[in-house]
């Protein structure tokens, strides 16, 4: 579970987040919508402190804020992260990539010598089965397609056995069919494994299809919070000011066609 209260982040004079309050429950897929530059990425990166917040309170899985590097690593151990460009290591095997999700708990010298505990290998293989890639475990990661690489990224996060997963635009570089597979993986991870998933998206139609709850962010503030059914045109125009709500709601293909005409 994630609980965020009064979170702000400023870069010099520029305020990226201006006081965010947000709660993601156990087993819930919460999608964050918002225009580019609204602060979606910054919000996610504050949760695992890849970005240090300026002020505010973030509680993840009941852990207190980290006071030193060791506590920071302990906090991150419980938070999986999925990136837009998957960020897997191309020259390592699929299985080793997933095993990197377990490094934080392994004996370091054995791990450096590529000796992995049996239990960790089992957890990694289980995570790979969940994303349907168990039979590719020994292939080099860069032999896989873009969608499969993203799913290796999901398996790496699942291998952490996290209480929270942060997904930063996980389908932005995938085709619509693969994107649905990836988002379905994430939704099942939330519902079946009881993980609190906080996921940034920029496609409204995916949010409507997959989210349990949607949070709309614009200019560093929460401007909408509710179920997909509650996301009406008024809400969309608050999230995307100046954008025709019909266009925002339309499928991406139709939207691209519209944009070309405009």
């Amino acid at each position, binding site marked *: 579970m994630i609980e965020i209260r009064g979170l702000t982040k400023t870069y010099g004079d520029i305020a990226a987040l201006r006081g965010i309050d947000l709660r993601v429950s156990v087993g819930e897929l919460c999608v964050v919508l918002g225009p580019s530059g609204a602060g979606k990425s910054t919000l996610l990166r504050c949760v695992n402190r890849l970005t240090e917040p300026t002020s505010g309170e973030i509680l993840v899985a009941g852990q207190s804020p980290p006071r030193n590097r060791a506590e920071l690593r302990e906090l991150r151990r419980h938070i999986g*992260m999925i990136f837009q460009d998957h960020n897997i290591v191309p*020259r*390592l095997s699929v299985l080793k990539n997933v095993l990197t999700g377990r*490094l934080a708990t392994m004996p370091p010298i054995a791990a*450096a010598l590529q000796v992995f505990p049996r239990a960790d290998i089992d957890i990694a293989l289980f995570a790979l089965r969940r994303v349907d890639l168990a039979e590719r475990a020994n292939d080099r990661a860069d032999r896989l397609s873009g969608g499969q690489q993203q799913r290796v990224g999901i398996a790496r996060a699942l291998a952490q056995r996290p209480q929270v997963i942060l997904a930063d635009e996980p389908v932005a570089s995938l085709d619509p069919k693969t994107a649905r597979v990836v988002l379905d993986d994430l939704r099942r991870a939330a519902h079946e494994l009881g993980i609190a998933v906080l996921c940034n998206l920029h496609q409204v139609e995916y949010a409507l299809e997959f989210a349990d709850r949607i949070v709309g962010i614009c200019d560093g503030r929460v401007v909408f919070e509710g179920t997909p059914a509650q996301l009406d045109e008024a809400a969309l125009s608050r999230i995307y000011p100046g954008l025709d709500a019909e266009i925002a709601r339309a499928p991406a293909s139709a939207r691209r066609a519209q944009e070309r005409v405009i």
Partner: protein
Amino acid sequence: MNRFRFLLGGAWTFRRRLTWLGLFFASAVVLVWSARGIGLSFSELLRGLPWIWDLVSRMLPPNWAFSERLVKPVIETVQIALWGTLLSVLLALPLCFLGARNLSPSLALFHVIRQVFNALRGINEIIFALIFVAAVGLGPFAGVLALSIHGGGMLGKFFAEAVEEIDAGPVEALRATGTRPSLVVVFAVLPQVIPSWIASTLYRFEVNLRAATILGMIGAGGIGFELVSSLKLFQYQDTATCVLVILIMVMTADYLSSRLRARILAP
């Protein structure tokens, strides 16, 4: 560089013609001045031609029997190059992370390490060899130390540059899982740099082998000693054998190493 960009393209303005003319005369002056400094003279070369021809004719045919005596020096030369390369890798490995801008713990340390690499690189192997001959005495060990120190600076720079070119994404992803920094290096940095590191090391071995062939001239071991001795004893046919053996050795190493490098760097 930007100030000179106007020289490369665009219209031939008056100012541009004038600049080119100025550059042309400046280079001509520098070249003539240098030629005087070094006593460059075609007439001297022409007058020397018969003597060169005399020397070459006395080198021919090479004395193949002499090659028997070269077996040991050739092996020693390869051994010097091997250990010189290995020790420079061991010197470069721990330092290269500190000398890579993206991984160095502090910018000051990064600059210090880079300057250390530059200093080691900047001094020729032969100069190091002269120092080590004085320090540890005549023999191949002085040569090995010389190659290690100079090569350590060279490889340190290459290794550090490879580290700087990695994709930061996997590094961030592993940090985000709570992995300790040493294991982030093992699992996110090393897989990205190792092909380039191996290629640099192989290339360094080629360079070290060529350098090892002349270390003997100053008493630091290897085949160079035989070459200089034969010259001093006016045994020019032996000298020719030495030169040919060196040529075969260096060309073989270059061929093997460049094939290996091409295979390692292939995607």
